[in-house]
C-alpha cells in the first residue's frame, strides 16, 4: 500500500505530516480526509468556535506529488463516513 502524507493548511501556514499513513488508494485518502475534517470541525464547534471552513488538507504521496486538496468546507457541507 502506498503512504500518503496529510499536510494541514491554515491560511499561509502549512503543518507538515512527516509520518503519513498507508492507504489502499485515492478513495481511501478522500474518505480519511473527510472523516478527519468532520472530527476537527465538530470538536471546534463544541469548543464554541465557528465552523472552520478556511482550512484544508493537502495530501501528497511519497514522491511529494499532490494527490488531493481537501478543503474542510467539503466536510461541513457534504455527507461522508462517520469519523
Amino acid at each position, binding site marked *: 500500500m502506498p503512504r500518503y502524507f496529510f499536510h*494541514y493548511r491554515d491560511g499561509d501556514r502549512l503543518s507538515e505530516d512527516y509520518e503519513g499513513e498507508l492507504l489502499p488508494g485515492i478513495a481511501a485518502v478522500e474518505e*480519511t480526509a473527510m472523516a*478527519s475534517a468532520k472530527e476537527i470541525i465538530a470538536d471546534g464547534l463544541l469548543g464554541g468556535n465557528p465552523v472552520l471552513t478556511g482550512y484544508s488538507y493537502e495530501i501528497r504521496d511519497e514522491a511529494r506529488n499532490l494527490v488531493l486538496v481537501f478543503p474542510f468546507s467539503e466536510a461541513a457541507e457534504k455527507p461522508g463516513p462517520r469519523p
Partner: protein
Amino acid sequence: MYKPNNKKYKNELIRRLSQEDLALVEPDLVRCELPLRMMLEKRNSPIEFVYFLEGGIGSIVAKMPMGRDTEVGLIGFEGMTGTALVLGDDQSTHECYVQLAGEAHRMPVDQLRSALAQSTTLRPFLLRYVQALFIQTSYTALVNARSKLEERLARWLLMCDDRVGGDRLTITHEFLAIMLGVRRPGVTVALQILEGKGLIRANRGEIILRDRNGLIELADGAYSEPEGEYRRLIGEIG
C-alpha cells in the same frame, strides 16, 4: 505514601516494596526489553506475565470497529500491567501494548499469584496502584466526554513527559491518534494549535515541551488531579 527503599530498581512500585515482599518477588523478576508494539496483554485472554515497567510506555487500548480504538490507560515506570490479576481476575479485558519502547521486569502470573497468597502486605500495596490507575482512567473518561482535542493532547503530552524524562518526546502520530480518539491526520491539526499557543514545538516526529505550566493550565485540572492522587496513594515519582 511509601518510601522508595529499593533504589536499584527504576519501577516505582518495586522500589517501594517492603524487604519481605521484595524477597518474595525478586527471584522471579526477569529483566526484558519492551520493543515498540510488543503485546503485553491480549484482549479477553489469560494474562501470562505481569510487567513492572522501568522505562517506556504501555498503553491499555479498548477496541471498536472501523479504527476507533481508544486508549483507556497509560502505564510507565510508575506502574505495572496485570492489574486485573491483583483484583482477582486472571484475564485481561483490553489489549495492552508498548507504545514507546523501554524495559521492564516481568514476572510469570503463577509466581505473582503465589507471592500475593503468601504476603499480607503485597496485595494491599498493589491495590493502591490499581486505584491510582482507576483514577487515571476515570479522568480519561471525563476528558474524552468534555475536553477539546487540544486540551486532551496537552494532558497526554504531560503524562508521557512524566514517564519519559527530558522535554523531548518521540511519539508517533499513530499513537497520539489512539490516545486522543481521533483519526491520525487530526493529530497534526491539534499539534499545530498547541504550537500556535507557544506551548510546544513539533518537529519531524519529535515534540518538544516549551511551556509545561501553560500545558497544565490548558488541561484544566485533568492533568494534575490524578497525578496528585498517585502521590497520595504511592508517593513521589523519580
